[in-house]
């Protein structure tokens, strides 16, 4: 891992491989669609390649920028992404399509600010939960407090970050982009719990959250998606259609798939085969083996991301690495769960793979940041394994270095605590 360039090669390999699978699948999915429209069969592919080029460019840039510089950007980026989310509703530059208002017109292309918002939010949270000295809104002054005090305080630890999250979610619901709302919620809650926010706050908040979800679900189209998820065959020509066609794609693929480009479902039946349902197409053309391979790559991304987090040189890096990894993998999980009929339909692209510049740009940038964290995690290239283990602990908890007795006890305490947090995160 810790080679000369320092970046995590397995992560890099996974991201590039996923992007490569994406190139083939997007071409396979859109060659026909493109013919159907006015453009040539390469039109989508060309746009996808341009997006990828920009995305990999961003990845390279972030790989070489010290991730700690991002701390300075945490708040400005958050504010900027919020402003962009609002701009979506403006005339001329906001684009309305398929009943949703999610895109900004950036002549000659478009941009989906909700993707950037997720990234900005992760950076902001990583900074927030690793920075002592909270900002007290009452006195409008920075208050000196320890990180522990800050995170356990109901306002600074819970209400403030959650309030900001809700603000974003309200705007996202307006668009509406329910997938992004859910994604943002899960990431925030998980990161706050890991950051040490008391569980009781979340438990107290739970009824309100459930009530809000209930109200949202009442929007008729969402309700239809949920009912059609429970019984897709009940209305297979109507609202259950997407899901039925997606399941057919998987079934049609069998073990080895029909072969690249030979899928039938994308041609006419499977809606959005190049974006939200690209995983179904993988299932059809590359079969069970291909689908498992893709999921396996995401598992690698996750494992490497966790390792990068564990080895990061500072708390910000640890939280940032965790948040970015979680952001990517969670979206992949949700996308795959929707495609395989384990969750109600919502529009979420598959990171690295789906057609869509904003999603690619954000997930590749996130990968770039992860690579940068991995490259800076230690100078212990020359250390032995045992020494490495020691140094890992040392870096993990610099304060405890050398205080072995205390170290063990606190480590154990942390582990138990973490178990609890993890379970809570799973529930959230």
């Amino acid at each position, binding site marked *: 891992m810790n080679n000369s360039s320092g970046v995590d090669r397995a992560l890099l390999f996974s991201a590039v491989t996923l992007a490569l699978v994406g190139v083939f699948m997007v071409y396979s999915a859109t060659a026909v669609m493109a013919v159907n429209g006015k453009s040539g069969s390469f039109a989508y592919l060309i746009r996808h390649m341009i997006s990828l080029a920009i995305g990999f460019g961003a990845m390279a840039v972030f790989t070489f920028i010290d991730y700690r510089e991002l701390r300075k950007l945490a708040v400005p980026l958050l504010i900027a992404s919020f402003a962009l989310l609002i701009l979506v509703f403006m005339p001329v530059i906001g684009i309305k399509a398929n009943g949703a208002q999610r895109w900004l017109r950036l002549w000659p292309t478009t941009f989906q600010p909700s993707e950037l918002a997720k990234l900005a939010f992760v950076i902001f949270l990583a900074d927030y939960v690793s920075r002592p000295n909270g900002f007290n809104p009452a006195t409008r002054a920075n208050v000196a407090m320890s990180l522990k005090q800050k995170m356990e305080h109901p306002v600074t630890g819970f209400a403030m970050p959650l309030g900001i999250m809700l603000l974003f979610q309200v705007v996202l619901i307006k668009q509406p982009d329910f997938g992004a709302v859910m994604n943002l919620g899960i990431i925030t809650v998980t990161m706050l719990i890991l*950051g040490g926010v008391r569980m009781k706050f979340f438990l107290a908040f739970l009824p309100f959250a459930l009530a809000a979800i209930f109200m949202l679900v009442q929007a008729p189209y969402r309700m239809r998606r949920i009912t059609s998820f429970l019984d897709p065959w009940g209305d297979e020509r109507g609202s259950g259609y997407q899901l039925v066609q997606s399941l057919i794609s998987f079934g049609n693929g069998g073990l080895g798939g029909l072969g690249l480009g030979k899928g039938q479902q994308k041609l006419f039946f499977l809606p959005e085969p190049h974006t939200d349902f690209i995983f179904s197409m993988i299932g059809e053309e590359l079969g069970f083996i291909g689908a498992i391979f893709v999921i396996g790559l995401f598992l690698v991304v*996750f494992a490497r991301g966790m390792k990068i987090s564990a080895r990061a040189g500072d708390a910000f890096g640890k939280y940032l690495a965790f948040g970015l990894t979680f952001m990517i993998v969670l979206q992949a999980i949700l996308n795959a769960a929707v495609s395989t009929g384990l969750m109600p339909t919502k529009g979420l692209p598959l990171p690295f793979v789906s057609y869509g510049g904003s999603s690619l740009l954000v997930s590749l940038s996130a990968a770039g940041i992860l690579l940068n964290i991995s490259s800076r995690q230690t100078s212990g290239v020359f250390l032995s394994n045992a020494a490495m283990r020691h140094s890992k602990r040392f870096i993990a*908890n610099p304060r405890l270095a050398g205080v072995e007795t205390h170290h063990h006890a606190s*480590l154990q305490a942390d582990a138990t605590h973490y178990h609890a947090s993890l379970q809570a995160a799973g529930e959230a």
Partner: protein
Amino acid sequence: MATGIKSGRVTDTTASRVILAVMVILFLGFALRLWQLQMIEGDKYRKLAESNRIHTVKVPAPRGIIYDRNGIPLVQNVPAFDVSVTPSEFPMESTPLLAALLSMSSSELDRKIRGRSVNPNYPVKVKLDVTREEIAKVEARKLELPGVDIQMEASRKYLYGSLGAHVLGYLGRLRPDQADDERFKGVPPDSFVGQWGLEAVFDEYLRGVPGEEIYEVNALGQKIRQLGRKPPEKGNDLRLTLDMYAQKAAEDAFDEEDKAGAAVAIDPNTGGILAMVSRPSFDPNLFATGINPKEWKEFINDPRKPMFNRAIQSQYPPGSTFKVVVALAALANDRFSPDSRVHCSGGIPFGGRTFRCWKKGGHGSVDLRRAIVESCDVYFYQTGLKLGIDPIAAMAESFGMGAPPKVGLVKEASGIVPSSAWKMKRMKQPWYAGETLSCAIGQGYVSASPYQMAEVAAIIGNGGTRWKPSFVKGTTPEAAGKINFDPAAIGLVRDAMRGVVEEGGGTAHRAKSQITTVAGKTGTAQVVGNEALKFKKAGAQLGDHGWFIAFSPVEKPDIAISVFVEHGGHGGSVAAPIAKSMIEAFRNREVPEKKKSEEEKMGAGGD
């Protein structure tokens, strides 16, 4: 860095192991799900995938044609055109263009195409019943409108416009609330089905079975090859007992007089309905080509009630036409002799008031035959008094009065046959003899629908059989009742009815025909009380309703008629000529000369 203890929680090796374990479990979960979908249930989905490649197009079945008794087609199958859009093939930029061509708003069109529940790969009907002009406009811009198709549905043209509208009814689109109806099983959505009249009653008989064309479709959903074809099965033709000539003669006569009312003609030998006219009427073609909600509202709120089938749904006092029933009730009674004479001086005093005869000077001395021919009221007052109400009621009921005749088109009026038991039940009062006087001349409580009075004429004409109503030619007649008249009695009444038309003093000499013999009876229903007031308010002209019942030829009748003209004055003046014109049209198999040119015009333009 002063990151504190918390930072350890993200990085703790135990913690990352737990998270990793969770992820591995999720991974295995997905693997299991994929295994289930792709390996275990794979065959099921592969079969479904196969059916995806096949596109089935429904081919509407030609509906059975409705003919009159002479084999003249009354309807014609015509296509109705709908515009459909396959959303996945339709470029969004073309929305305003298509909307403009179909004169609808862009937002309405957009809603139909891009609704959340719309399956983008199946055609959505965006406008029904487009005009040929609109089709031409769409076809001309076809290149700019990929995914737009014109689809055909089988509709109807009613060749003679409003002719027999209340009988034939009309077709309409299958309504959403009918989709689950057992009667419409297998009918594709948006199809035309019979919604009213015989079209509705015989819908399943006429409907046929839609065919299917099965295509293999290519990547773009375009048909590349026909895999199979199941031709549609034409619906059964329906030959009616309806006689187009009699029907048209009556309708023309009503229209010429601009009167509301009804006429019914039945075959006295079978019960087959030869004509059923109700005025005012409507043109069923309006419905077949799609009536808009505004027109529909105006139509059903029309105070003249054009949809109301007066032939079977209205009921009025039958007036003097009822006298033949009273006469037959009397003749069935031993105490009564047709030869005993009554002196009519223009009225009789009874119960403190005078019951007048319609003829102010009186008829002088009359026997039963004369009393029928000249429609003497005083004679029937006396007869009624002698008989009492109940024998009259019994006779009327055996004629089918007081009960719905079960023609089967719409909910029918049953009419009223008053009796002492009826009055006790309805009003909790005993019967008064004075009421018998009114009823004996068909006024007062008595009421009947035009159809019921046509049955009266038919039963007298055929000598006593009441047939079940039927519209379908060739069905075996079924008796609904039989009255065993004394041959002398029925002979006398028939002869008297002939006198009504053919004798100098008869009230219906205007029904006398040069080509055939006619027997009949006139009647006048007085417009009184609330009803008169109501008509006054509606601004309609006020006047008595005219009745005429008849059968022809007298010796062996093959047509029995009743004509009812709202505010038509005395039955002999307006109703009788309508009946005569029906009889002659039926006999000659043609509509009276001056109407004929009109009919030809219609025929020429009717295609």
